[in-house]
């Protein structure tokens, strides 16, 4: 947890820097309400990671202790390098499953729900991923890697992925062949046909090349960011649960058990009537979600987000000293505060015609 205490100010500084550079180049890559939502989602996810991280660590330790085959010397650089490569390989599969299995997409969809692509999007992380993510790292526990190695390489993998969420850096020559870069990660966040289910790697894109999921960014068709079933909300809580709710409704809508299971475990695009609903996306018809939110409310949202960032820093420091009940109460207050502001900002959408209606497949009944 402590590294994030230092990482968050750096993240915020880099966001400010990216905004400044973009403005100096005459580019608009940030929208305030979208960025506030991204930050709020990221802040909430840090609270749930406090619990999820414990689950992952405990499972890793238990499996490693009972079935770990080797002992690793943490002073040997090869231990760290091999662990990082293996972690990235496991990450590829976590990430791929997060896109190709509907119930796991329900968690990961949060990260893709922004219709912008900038450094704040990188912070838009899921609060529910900890349920299953640890399963994919069992091979590392079976190999007996120490927990500290697992945690550190996990952090490196996560931090690496921050800088690739930018539109300001173009293609990077030979690096595109080996590493995940801003260019090939833009493809991953695109909803154009050529972008769907591509570039899952964390640090290395060699896994994508090995398993046939790599795609280069096309100069003639820039990615359109976001998801095919738009979130249409600034509410961070809804962003985290909206796809679960959708799956629940889909499951309830059918009495066929095969269909119920398919809604859970098939690709997110699966439907009983059409084999694949992802095909054909009209990039020119896409319009971003927006609302007429009063400036005063936006200012309050900015203050709340800043306050929440400070509250999170306090939480990092105080977490171990506070009783569990207080931890939970503090987290609940935090989530409630950010949810309320997000919900209030979304309310204003009623005053605007729904701009995303052309690509929407679900109604925005949550707003």
């Amino acid at each position, binding site marked *: 947890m402590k590294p994030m205490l230092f990482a968050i100010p750096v993240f915020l500084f880099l966001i400010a820097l990216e905004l400044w550079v973009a403005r100096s180049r005459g580019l608009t890559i940030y929208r305030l309400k979208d960025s506030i939502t991204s930050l709020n989602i990221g802040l909430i996810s840090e609270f749930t990671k406090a619990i999820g991280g414990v689950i992952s660590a405990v499972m890793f330790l*238990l*499996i490693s202790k*009972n*079935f*770990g*085959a080797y002992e690793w010397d943490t002073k040997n650089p090869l231990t760290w390098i091999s662990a990082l490569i293996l972690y990235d390989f496991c990450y590829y599969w976590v990430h791929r499953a997060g896109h*190709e*299995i509907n119930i796991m997409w329900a968690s990961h969809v949060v990260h893709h729900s922004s219709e912008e692509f900038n450094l704040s999007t990188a912070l838009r992380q899921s609060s529910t991923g900890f349920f299953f993510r640890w*399963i994919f790292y*069992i091979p590392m526990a*079976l190999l007996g890697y120490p927990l500290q190695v697992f945690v550190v390489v996990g952090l490196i993998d996560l931090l690496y992925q921050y800088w690739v969420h930018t539109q300001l850096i173009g293609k990077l020559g030979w690096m595109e062949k080996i590493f995940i870069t801003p260019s090939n990660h833009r493809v991953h966040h695109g909803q154009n046909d050529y972008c769907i289910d591509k570039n899952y790697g964390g640090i290395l894109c060699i896994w994508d090349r090995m398993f046939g999921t790599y795609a280069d960014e096309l100069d003639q068709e820039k990615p359109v960011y976001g998801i095919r079933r738009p979130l249409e909300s600034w509410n961070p809580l809804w962003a985290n649960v909206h796809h679960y709710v959708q799956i629940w409704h889909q499951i309830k809508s059918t009495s066929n058990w*095969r269909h119920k299971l*398919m809604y859970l*475990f*098939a*690709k997110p695009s699966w439907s009983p009537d059409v084999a694949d609903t992802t095909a054909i996306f009209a990039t020119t018809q896409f319009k971003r979600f927006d609302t007429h939110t009063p400036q005063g409310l936006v200012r309050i949202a900015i203050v709340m987000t800043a306050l929440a960032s400070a509250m999170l820093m306090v939480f990092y420091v105080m977490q171990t000293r506070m009783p569990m009940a207080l931890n939970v109460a503090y987290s609940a207050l935090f989530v409630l505060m950010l949810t309320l502001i997000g919900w209030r900002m979304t309310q204003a959408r009623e005053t605007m015609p729904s701009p995303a209606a052309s690509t929407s497949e679900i109604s925005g009944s949550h707003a």
Partner: protein
Amino acid sequence: MPSLAITDAILFGCAAYLAFQRQIPIAYRLGFGLLALAALLGAMKFSGLYPLETWHRLFTILGGSAALPLLAICVIWPQSAVVNDRQFALIFLGAAAILGLAIAGLGKLRIYDQVVGALSMLLILWLLIKQGEKRRIMGLSFMLFGSALFLAKVQFSPWLVPGDFLHLGMAIGILLFAPTPHRLFIAQHAE
């Protein structure tokens, strides 16, 4: 070389051969593949070639708690997505393996994988008897007989220990149980 290493190597050979048969459904191949992995680790352990004690124990658990239930699904619902689609076969195998790992591996309830494995084989046998598939019934009988001799710790001769009966019974059993291209053709056209 101990007999257990030889019989585990035989089981590995049979299971790996079946796992690489492209014409049989993916769930069969994954099930046989997992059994092959457990047998390979056993052969390495008993021969002293490269003993990975903990992994052999784990993969033996997974064989009973995940591979055999997956093979049972292959017989119960041969046309299902779990049997014919890699994604669903892997999800089933993964979920069953996590349960096995948690209950029998970490919870030390070894009876779990033994009961799940035995019930899966009995279920397969019952369905095959209903379908009247003699060759496969014989295969399941070998698997069950080998398992029973192992659990009863029977020793017929000084050269074969109870574990050998399990390995040999499984090896002969899966060869007879695996669907042949001819049978798959009939199954597809019976739809």
